[in-house]
């Protein structure tokens, strides 16, 4: 501690009963606050604090200077806009800059892009990044294109042709929706409703889409349709709202759709309903031509969990020569023994295979 001079200091104010300290061994200098001896501890190390203070002020200026300008963002956005194709996704790094991405490119972004569960439906990924950040869902390799616009870097990753055959969220209006009542599957009718009036705000719930399968007019939440939830990690997820009614399932059937080799599903609950981790599980059963090919139990805390069904394995077609059905009726059943605040929402697709990158 000699640097600090602690072990060489004298007594402080009233340790000797009177104010001030006595110094006898060294010559005394006059300073602004009175007399002070030339201190033994007066080390140049103390001057580091002055350097630090100056550096801190300079660092503040540097931080301000490094903020990307509107021109930087607009330049990057203009370039991406000029190159954008139908199956391109756009993201930003770090994630907190997402409002800025949407400010400059939001006219070319949809909930399908912003609320995506994965990149399977997309063939290219554009990344706008600042501060040298990398997008977590970008492939871990060099981009196919990279250019900087001031302090904004634009990268493009070519992901290859999408293997998605049917996006089950996109296709929801082609589905049949039923709810089981006393053993009978009662159809939920697809209707177009007037625009919802939503209180909104914190815990204000989700916005019901105008077109939705309303299963019960008395229970306003018992509907099936496209929406966007705040998932457990607070990210947006575009999905099919399928709030269970109880142990009897709500069923969504896609008749005669292309199947491919696998079905990828994501399921989770609205943040507020899942974060307490205290309510019951939700079961998602998947049936192909009325035969169960998968059953998943979502528990609070799982977040937007990924479920994958390998159709070759499930249909016993793993043997050489065996063939998979090209098409079929795909049914999803959602149920929960305790349905209170089980705002289950799922997304998914049938896919023709596994893409090397961004599967």
């Amino acid at each position, binding site marked *: *501690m000699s640097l600090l001079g602690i072990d060489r*200091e004298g*007594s402080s104010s009233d*340790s000797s009963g009177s104010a001030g300290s006595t110094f006898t061994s060294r010559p005394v200098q*006059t300073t602004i606050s009175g007399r002070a001896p030339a*201190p033994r501890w007066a080390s140049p190390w103390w001057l580091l604090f002055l350097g630090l203070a100056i550096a801190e002020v300079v660092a503040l200026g540097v931080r301000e200077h490094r903020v990307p300008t509107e021109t930087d963002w607009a330049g990057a956005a203009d370039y991406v806009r000029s190159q954008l194709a139908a199956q391109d996704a756009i993201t930003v790094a770090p994630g907190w800059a997402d409002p800025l991405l949407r400010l400059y490119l939001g006219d070319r972004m949809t909930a399908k892009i912003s609320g995506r569960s994965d990149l399977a439906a997309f063939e290219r990924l554009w990344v706008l990044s600042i501060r040298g950040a990398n997008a977590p869902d970008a492939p871990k390799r060099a981009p196919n294109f990279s250019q900087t616009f001031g302090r904004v870097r634009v990268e493009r990753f070519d992901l290859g042709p999408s293997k998605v055959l049917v996006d089950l969220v996109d296709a929801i209006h082609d589905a049949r929706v039923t709810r089981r009542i006393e053993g009978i599957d009662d159809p939920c009718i697809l209707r177009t409703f007037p625009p919802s009036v939503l209180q909104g705000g*914190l815990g204000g719930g989700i916005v019901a889409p105008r077109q939705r399968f309303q299963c019960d007019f008395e229970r306003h939440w018992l509907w099936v349709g496209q929406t966007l939830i*705040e998932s457990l990690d607070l990210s947006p997820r575009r999905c099919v709202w399928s709030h269970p009614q109880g142990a009897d399932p709500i069923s969504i059937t896609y008749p005669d759709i292309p199947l491919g080799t696998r079905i990828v599903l994501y399921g989770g609950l609205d943040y507020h309903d899942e974060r307490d981790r205290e309510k019951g599980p939700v079961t998602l059963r998947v049936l192909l031509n009325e035969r169960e090919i998968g059953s998943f139990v979502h528990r609070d805390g799982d977040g937007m969990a990924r479920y994958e069904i390998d159709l070759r394995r499930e249909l016993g077609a793993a043997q050489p020569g065996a063939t998979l059905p090209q098409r079929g009726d795909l049914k999803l059943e959602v149920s929960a023994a305790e349905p209170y605040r089980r705002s289950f929402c799922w997304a998914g697709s049938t896919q023709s295979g596994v893409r090397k990158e961004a599967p």
Partner: protein
Amino acid sequence: MSVVTTPVHLGLRDHLVGATLALVYLIILLATASDLAMSRDESFYVTAAESYGQWYAEVFEDSEKAFSRESIDRYWAYNNEHPALAKTVFAWTWLLDQRGWPSFREALGMDPAPLFPTPSSAYRFGGMLAGSLTLWLIYIFGARAADRRLGLFAALAYATLPRVFYHAHLDAFDVPIVLMVLWVTYAYWRSLVSKRWAIVTGIAYGCALATKHNAWLVPGVLLVHFAWVAGQEVARRKRGERERIVLVPYWLLAMVTIGPLLFYASWPWIWHDTVPRFLAYARFHLHHDYYNMAYFGVNYFRPPFPLSYPYVMTLFTVPFTIVLLMVFGIALRLRALMPELLAKRLMPRGELRADARATDVLWLGSALLPLLVFAMPNTPIFGGTKHWFTAYPFLCLFAGYAALHVIVSTESRLISRGLAEAGPVSILSMAVLLAPGFAETAHSHRFALSHYTLAAGGVPGAADYGMNRQFWGFTTGSVVEFLKQKMPNGGSVFLNDTTWGAFEMLKRDGLLPPNIRAEGRLTEADYVLVHHEHHMAEVDFQAWQAFGSVQPVHVLTYDGVPIVSIYEHPRRRRMSQVPAR
């Protein structure tokens, strides 16, 4: 030897220095207050102040009626989870602004204009005054206990803590309670050698109790400290040394008598049904709701909360130079923080001894207790740093010790080489050490709750870490110009985290035209505000769904980090696309 040059006597000159500090700070606060829209909590205290103010007006008009239970319950029921002193001051300044001062001017034949430039500053004046008086007291405490320059440095360091500067503008309790706790501690410290200061301690403690519930913790620190000091004193007397400390705890007697009396007298709400109403107040704080707070990417909304929270947040929001000075200051005083026997054993070569009042121990205890309380896993952390502001004056006083070492070290090195006069060197050194605080505070103004300092990498660095971006919704004040520009003929706004009262204050202050109104239903508003906090993300998504677009029309940023997004209703978009005739 010591770096400190403790003045023998503090006099008028010192109080003039303290008063000047306070006055300058008050002027700066008043001049910058209109840049800050009201926060959520402030708007509640405005409502409370108006209600309590009406009661005080009734006291003058019809005192019998005013003191009836019916009247007290009517005016004092609102916001009865907090004691009344601060809100009473807000009420008085509001009454002065709206009634007293205009009447006075009228009596002089002048037009009956209000005292304050805006209604919000009338409510806020009491808070600003408390923030300013705190500087005075820090200076006096530092100068009396150690060194004038130490006191000056500590006061200025405290004044230029970015978040303190923001909160010092507000009609809230977080800055007034700092003044009160500091006053109690100072008065107690003086009472150790002067019996009459025990009375002041009791009065100060009553005011602290009547300001905010932090006050209930203060006796804990004082009792432990007194046990320490008394133990040392007894040992000294046994060794035949002269008396230095008053061993009878008159201060405690005053605190337990005058304190509760003042608390009771200042709060008409508890004049009736005293026990149940007091218990309800206690229950509110002992079982406080938990609100959301982001910390390293996790949205904490219930216990257990992270133990590191107050320490890391202090590191991330106080200028780094000051943080290091605080740490070094404590290290410098380490020997004085130990009982004498322990100090001799652990640091035998050291000469630094605790003073009879163990001032260092008192300061350290007062600094650590608030931090320790908010490091407990069950203590709500929703208030960010403001809940442990009471620690900061003491930490700044310790920083003063290290700053003195820097200053005297610089002086002695330069003077011994004949390079400079002591005065300018001393001032320049202090100015350099305080420069980060001044710069960060100036930069943080309007966005102080979003501001992070060097250790966090600034605002973008904190965003990278996933730290809380803001709270209380006061940044709506920074989008007023956009709203005015977009709605020249009026319209509606969904306010998200801003309260209706805070929004209305923008109109009362003349910052927002009356035809721009708050809309409670998100889907019906012309414009939707989203205050970016982790848990507010759902409001973004609601707006996307409601308006069929993920694109905001405006994003307010601070150092490049989004603070507020604004979405436009499609009908408004269509209106703006219709060519004007």
